[in-house]
């Protein structure tokens, strides 16, 4: 029968590590100059302020990422997994030899670098990778973009009160998923080169001034972790029975306020669900991949009208169970959440994953199993 595929752990996907950890110091002038030079070899992406909020965008020539941002409104997952992305194209023009035959769209998978990605968002990329890069099937759109990307992380010295990364398998100086981790020392940046990809980028940027100040990273890390005031407990999730958690009595209460909008799933760096749509203009058609959300009823509705997750409560439960239980059981790689706090801050009705996680983690089935007696 459908045997459980070997569970790959997040660690097995780590990019090639450089042998000796290299530290370089980059004064702020060299930082800007280096990025400008590196832009010849890499497409650069980074946080910039647009209207009221920061977003990750392709940087214009000479444009610098704004590293003073606390966190972006939407996660940078869209750089590998755009909200709307063309996959295939075709012609319906029957006078053409190749009509109705689908072809891959031409894509630009040239090297690019995300400058200033937060460690939480980088870790999230590895969780998403578990979905798009499996032993059996690989999503070429996501994976090609991922492989073309160098992740230059910015250590997070000013976490928000809603950040709970340190208890979500991550942290403000976390290195998983990054090729280089940069910390701000005021006058200069100190960069830790973590992978060959990171080294190649440092070379392209001409950042070579060595540093021995490994202690600075440790101190920065300790200080930043001390500023994380929010936490979740996840120690019981794996051992709690899936069906009993599914039948727990608190779901109606958790879901009551929910509007079933897509804010949480769209802003989440780890949510990966998508829809496939065809669009035709004249005789030219494309098949595209669009973000989708388990909050939307049409996500699961059958053609017959039957919907396996017909009610708001079922859909809200699906989101939290997927993140905090199904994913935990399936991959043995922790929870499907990096503690970035975006959904907490942006939910229009203040449904807080930390509260739900607490309910789930402290849930004792026997408390409610009166029927068993």
């Amino acid at each position, binding site marked *: 029968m459908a045997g459980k595929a070997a569970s790959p752990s997040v660690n097995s996907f780590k990019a090639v590590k450089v042998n000796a950890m290299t530290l370089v110091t980059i004064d702020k002038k060299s930082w800007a100059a280096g990025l400008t030079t590196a832009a010849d070899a890499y497409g650069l992406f980074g946080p910039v302020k647009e209207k009221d909020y920061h977003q990750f965008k392709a940087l214009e020539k000479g444009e610098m990422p704004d590293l003073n941002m606390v966190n972006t409104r939407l996660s940078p997952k*869209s750089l590998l997994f755009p*909200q*709307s992305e*063309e996959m295939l194209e075709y012609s319906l023009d029957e006078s053409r030899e190749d009509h109705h035959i689908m072809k891959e769209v031409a894509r630009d998978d040239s090297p690019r670098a995300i400058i200033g990605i937060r460690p939480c968002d980088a870790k999230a990329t590895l969780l998403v990778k578990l979905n798009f890069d499996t032993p059996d099937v690989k999503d070429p759109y996501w994976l090609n973009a991922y492989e073309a990307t160098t992740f230059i992380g910015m250590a997070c010295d000013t976490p928000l009160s809603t950040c709970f990364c340190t208890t979500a398998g991550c942290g403000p100086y976390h290195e998983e998923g990054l090729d280089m981790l940069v910390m701000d020392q005021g006058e200069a940046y100190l960069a830790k080169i973590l992978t060959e990809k990171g080294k190649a980028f440092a070379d392209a940027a001409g950042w070579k001034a060595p540093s021995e100040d490994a202690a600075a990273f440790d101190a920065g890390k300790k200080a930043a972790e001390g500023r994380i005031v929010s936490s979740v407990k996840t120690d019981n999730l794996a051992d709690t029975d899936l069906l009993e958690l599914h039948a727990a009595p608190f779901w109606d209460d958790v879901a009551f306020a929910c509007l079933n909008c897509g804010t949480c799933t769209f802003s989440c760096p780890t949510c990966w669900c998508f829809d496939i749509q065809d669009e035709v*203009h004249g005789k030219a058609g*494309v098949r*595209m991949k669009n973000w989708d959300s388990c909050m939307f009823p049409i996500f699961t509705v059958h053609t017959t009208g039957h919907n396996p997750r017909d009610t708001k409560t079922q859909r809200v439960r699906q989101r939290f169970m997927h993140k905090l239980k199904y994913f935990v059981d399936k991959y043995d790689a922790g929870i499907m959440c990096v503690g970035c706090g975006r959904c907490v801050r942006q939910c229009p009705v203040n449904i807080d994953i930390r509260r739900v996680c607490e309910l789930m983690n402290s849930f004792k089935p026997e408390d409610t199993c009166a029927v068993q007696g």
Partner: protein
Amino acid sequence: MEYMGIERDRLHMSWVSSAEATKFIDVVTRVTEAVRALGPNQHFVKQKAKVA
């Protein structure tokens, strides 16, 4: 529609009875001329889908 940036003369609404042939001709002529004067519509025309 006009409030959103569609030209005023592009959208017409008339009430023409099946008995009002002259009015019908008049309206069609007026609308055609007005729209011709505006030129091809530039808005709410979806070309190939933009992706992001």
